[in-house]
């Protein structure tokens, strides 16, 4: 099982609408998450090229000049820019087949080009290969409490992100959100902690969260602060 950014391709009509007035487009696939799960890899970029060329009718009869290419990882600005640079002059727009981070990296690298997202970026997901289904397990909240909850994240898997669950919307271990199909995260937590003889962790009160660690936009690391410090020395 792999933990990756989960994406879903937008409806073709929506992509074509965004390409309105564009005569030539460079379709850029990504061999990172998008490629691994075949949402926006090499193959999908090629297919997109064919689809766009065939979509003359949807474009009121105007043909589009499209080329498909793929980069190793669109979220790496340097790799993406150097791979795309030699080709970019011939195109009005870039259609990114990557996640939202990839789209923004390209938009930043090619500020004078129109950069269009081909996908909706959904969540950080884990895939169940047998079912071919993706699940959201971590929302990257920035303040991990998985020790206390026996490895089940209530921030992500409880529809209300409760720290002191369960709520009244649970029955027979299921959650009312989504029609009683999903497991109630807090009953999962209770069961696991009970098995481990750690119900003290369940009953424990958890204080309200400090959302400053979760609020966007977040940053981590880097050397700019050090440089600033050195300057002031």
């Amino acid at each position, binding site marked *: 099982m792999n933990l990756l950014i989960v994406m879903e391709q937008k409806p073709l009509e929506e992509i074509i609408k965004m390409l309105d007035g564009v005569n030539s487009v460079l379709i850029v696939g990504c061999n990172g998450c998008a490629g691994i799960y075949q949402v926006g890899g090499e193959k999908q970029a090629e297919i997109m090229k064919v689809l766009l060329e065939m979509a003359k009718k949807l474009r009121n009869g105007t043909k589009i000049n499209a080329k498909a290419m793929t980069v190793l990882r669109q979220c790496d600005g340097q790799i993406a820019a150097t791979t795309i640079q030699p080709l970019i002059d011939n195109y009005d727009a870039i259609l990114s087949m990557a996640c939202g981070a990839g789209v923004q990296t390209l938009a930043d690298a090619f500020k004078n080009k129109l950069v269009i997202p081909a996908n909706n970026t959904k969540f950080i997901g884990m895939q169940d290969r047998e079912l071919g289904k993706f699940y959201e397990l971590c929302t990257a909240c920035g303040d991990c409490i998985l020790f206390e909850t026996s490895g089940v994240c209530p921030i992500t898997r409880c*529809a*209300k*992100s*409760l*720290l*002191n*669950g*369960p*709520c*009244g*919307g*649970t*029955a*027979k271990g*299921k959650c*009312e*959100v*989504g029609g*009683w199909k999903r497991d109630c995260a*807090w*009953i999962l937590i*209770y069961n696991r902690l009970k098995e481990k003889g750690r*119900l003290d962790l*369940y*009953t*424990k*009160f*958890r*204080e*309200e*969260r400090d*959302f400053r660690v979760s609020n966007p936009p977040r940053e981590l690391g880097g050397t700019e602060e050090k440089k600033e410090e050195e300057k002031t020395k």
Partner: protein
Amino acid sequence: MTKEVYSDLMRQITEGKFVFTGELEPVKTTNLHEVLEGAKILKGHVVAANITDNPTAFAYMNALVPSYMIQHEVGLEAIYQMTTRDRNRIALISDLLAAAALGIKNVLALTGDHTTVGDNPQAKPVFDLDSATLVRLIRKMVDEGVDLNKNKIENPPKFHVGIAANPNADPLEPEILKIERKVKLGAEFLQTQCVYDIERAKRIVKELAYLKIPVLLGIAPFKSIAMMEWMVKFVPGIYVPDEIQQRLRKAKDKGGKEAVYQENIEIFGDIIKEIKKTTKAAGVHVMAVGFEWIVPKIIAQSGVR
């Protein structure tokens, strides 16, 4: 406990009286008439009435205004319900200050149904706090005169804080431990969701006894057979014993709507009598939204007052 008592509800509970509370639901309207009429009917029969806060995530009139109005216009004490679904801690603190300024004495701290089950399911759910952290917020405001971030409050509020429990929870243990969490934080009274089975009523009161929190068992008569059938079918966890279902259906066949009302009065009057006799419940919370007139009749039937 030598805690100060601010409300009639808490006064009666501390005096050991078997108390009744009612429920009023402001709806999607700008008219307060119905809520005030309902309050007039309940007055004298219940010590206080809950004012619901956008129940099942339906966007209704805000609960604070009717809470104030039933106290001010009718003289019926309010239990101001507050959910954490629609307001972050800033808004909750702000509304709590306003509630105290308007003379509200009881607050019921709830998490609130999820936005997606409501009438504006596209809404962003808030849940900055949950019912437990809301209890803590209220306690800090009342006991320490500060908010969650220790900011001082000028002229701190005086509230009693209540919580809810689900007597139909299955399994029950996680529910009990969750209540324990909130009692330790300083919750002072508890109202349960509706319970129709006397055995379940007895069970929850017994299981909660060690926490020494006054428990008001929730009962909800059926406005119609259709309502009963809907609840049995679509509200998971709700258990209505066959005997009650049969009695109400038979009444309908025999005498229509009026007979159903009469049967309700008998069934729920007897349930209250049984609760009083066989449990250590502090009282009963009667939910009859839209047909409040039945509440005095059920209470009279119980013979408890």
